[in-house]
């Protein structure tokens, strides 16, 4: 599904990713853990195509195609979804309007017809119910005045509707209480399947108690420095990241 080869990227002249290699198989849930400043969020932004980052070397292959030269919306239409650590507030745009526009834009990019309004209402209602998203929230401007938990549930609602092939979750657990964490994790787990892969970026093991990863990668100083099974997350929880703070150099 996702193959990252020798990826280096910088922002405003500061090198963040330094020859990163990562493979995520189709149907796999890969957790990426690492200390603050190791480049986890940068990795998620570079996959999604944020313009601020300059890729200085390497490739990001989605099903064999290098997506690095593509605009973010083209990547989205090819199945990349980034759940933001800090979802952006969009004043003046009703959440429903936004959801419909994005869903139809992706359908159009794939040569599919727009959803009719009743079809759209049906899929949104059912997805919202599953994530305990209050219908009133959908009428409000996107993310404006939403609590931290509401914003994260809205991210997962969008992911559910857009049904990506690759979901990149950037610190989705940050700012969530236990109940919200469970709702969000259930939402992600419901989307797991043999055709869909996830990259779950997190600082803490806590999220991985709810979303069990197939593999765990440790990131430090802009690279993957260790990979293993779910037990690796537990080890990190016990020992912290001190073993990795110098190893990557």
């Amino acid at each position: 599904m996702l193959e990252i080869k020798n990826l280096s990227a910088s922002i405003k002249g500061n090198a963040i990713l330094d020859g990163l290699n990562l493979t995520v198989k189709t149907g796999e849930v890969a957790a990426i853990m690492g200390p603050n400043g190791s480049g986890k969020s940068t990795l998620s932004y570079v996959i999604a195509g944020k313009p601020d980052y300059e890729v200085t070397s390497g490739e990001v292959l989605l099903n064999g195609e290098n997506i690095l030269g593509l605009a973010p919306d083209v990547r989205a239409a090819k199945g990349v979804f980034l759940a933001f650590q800090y979802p952006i507030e969009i004043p003046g745009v009703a959440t429903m309007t936004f959801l419909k526009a994005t869903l139809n834009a992706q359908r159009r990019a794939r040569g599919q017809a727009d959803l009719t309004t009743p079809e759209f209402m049906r899929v949104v209602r059912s997805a919202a119910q599953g994530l305990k998203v209050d219908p009133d929230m959908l009428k409000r401007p996107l993310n404006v005045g939403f609590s931290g938990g509401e914003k994260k549930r809205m991210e997962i609602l969008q992911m559910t509707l857009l049904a990506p092939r690759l979901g990149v979750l950037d610190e989705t657990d940050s700012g969530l209480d236990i109940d919200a964490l469970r709702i969000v994790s259930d939402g992600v787990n419901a989307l797991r399947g043999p055709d869909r892969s996830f990259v779950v970026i997190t600082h803490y093991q806590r999220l991985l108690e709810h979303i069990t990863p197939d593999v765990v990668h440790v990131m430090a100083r802009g690279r993957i420095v260790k990979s293993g099974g779910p037990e690796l997350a537990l080890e990190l929880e016990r020992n912290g990241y001190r073993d990795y703070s110098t190893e990557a150099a």
Partner: protein
Amino acid sequence: MTAAPAFPRTAAELGLAEQFHASLGAADSPARAEAFRRFESAGLPTRRVESWHYTDLRIALAIAAPLAAAPDEAAIAAAKDRLAKLPRLAPARIVLVNGVFVAALSDRPPAGVALAQPPASPTLPADDPMLALTLALAPAGIAAAVAPGAKPPPIEIVHCFAGEGPRAVYSRFAIDIGADASAAFIERFVGAGAETQRHASTVIDVAAGGALAHVAAIEDEPGLHVESEVVRLAERAALDAFGFVAGGALVRRQIFARIVGKDARIGLAGLGLLDGSRHADTTLEVVHAAPHGSSREFYRHIVADVATGVFQGKVIVQPGAQKTDGAMKSQAILLSPEATMNAKPELEIFADDVVCGHGATIGALDPEQLFYLQARGLPQAEAEAMLLEAFGAEAIGRVADSALAEALLTVMRDWLARRGRGRLS
């Protein structure tokens, strides 16, 4: 050098003098003569005049186009065809062609509204050369008086230009809202082209307890559009005015408002959609001359390409206008490195117990918001249009009449869609 600079008359100024003396006969109307004298003593405004600092008409108005003729049968027939295709924005329509009221094209005003000629020499709380020029050269025009206590349905005033080639059209319109009456007027400007020079004036008087909702919309593409609104609000009177600028090469909208009775309220708002090389200037002067008044100004501009937007807002709180509550906001989004916005909010406060504030922002679209929308699959042009529509819609939200607001939203969406297509080509 301490002597005041004596500018020679420009060709346009000489042309205007010739037109005034030839066509209307100064001797016939002392009021017109006085108005023209005021224009002549000031001349066309230059950037040395503070309130015209960003719009220099001495340079921009190189030649005064010949006056548009009073509408003959052919012009009225042409206007009729045009109006037949213009969807109504209000139940009742009043039509001026080249500044002249045309009863044959107008509806009978609704109950509670009477039409008459405006006074020849209105006492205006404003001294501006272009307003004076308009009063000197405009045909008699029309005044709509709403009877005390009346609440008529909304009325649209269509200012229609009919003619060929370079023409100057002057118009006078007046609205009198009687005590405790409530009304809505929409002034629409249609039919003008690049060779049209338009000078329009609207004098608004709201008596005690009266309320007026007023919208002005430029729906055509005049080469020059200079529009003056002169407002006087009595005790407890209220005005909500909205200006919609989506056309015109050189546009100047100026509003002179004076609150003369206590507890009056004024809300001025507007949206400018400026692309190409348009230049649009909105200049306000709001004078609080009575206590317990409130004023709100809320203007937004979207400026693309090499266009220029101007917002000047001056709120003056006179001595004795205690408990005045004023807030002014101007916000602009620039869509290209060559787009320009000049914003100058000003407060002049001579009373000590007031709450007044102002703010101005000028910026680009937020790249974080754009990336978020694009990451969800919206192509860049669509993502931009969504953010711009939200930005503009908040200004249009100040228009209370929902059908009218919807009509303005449609114009804005078309404008955004045209921009999006243009960018992709």
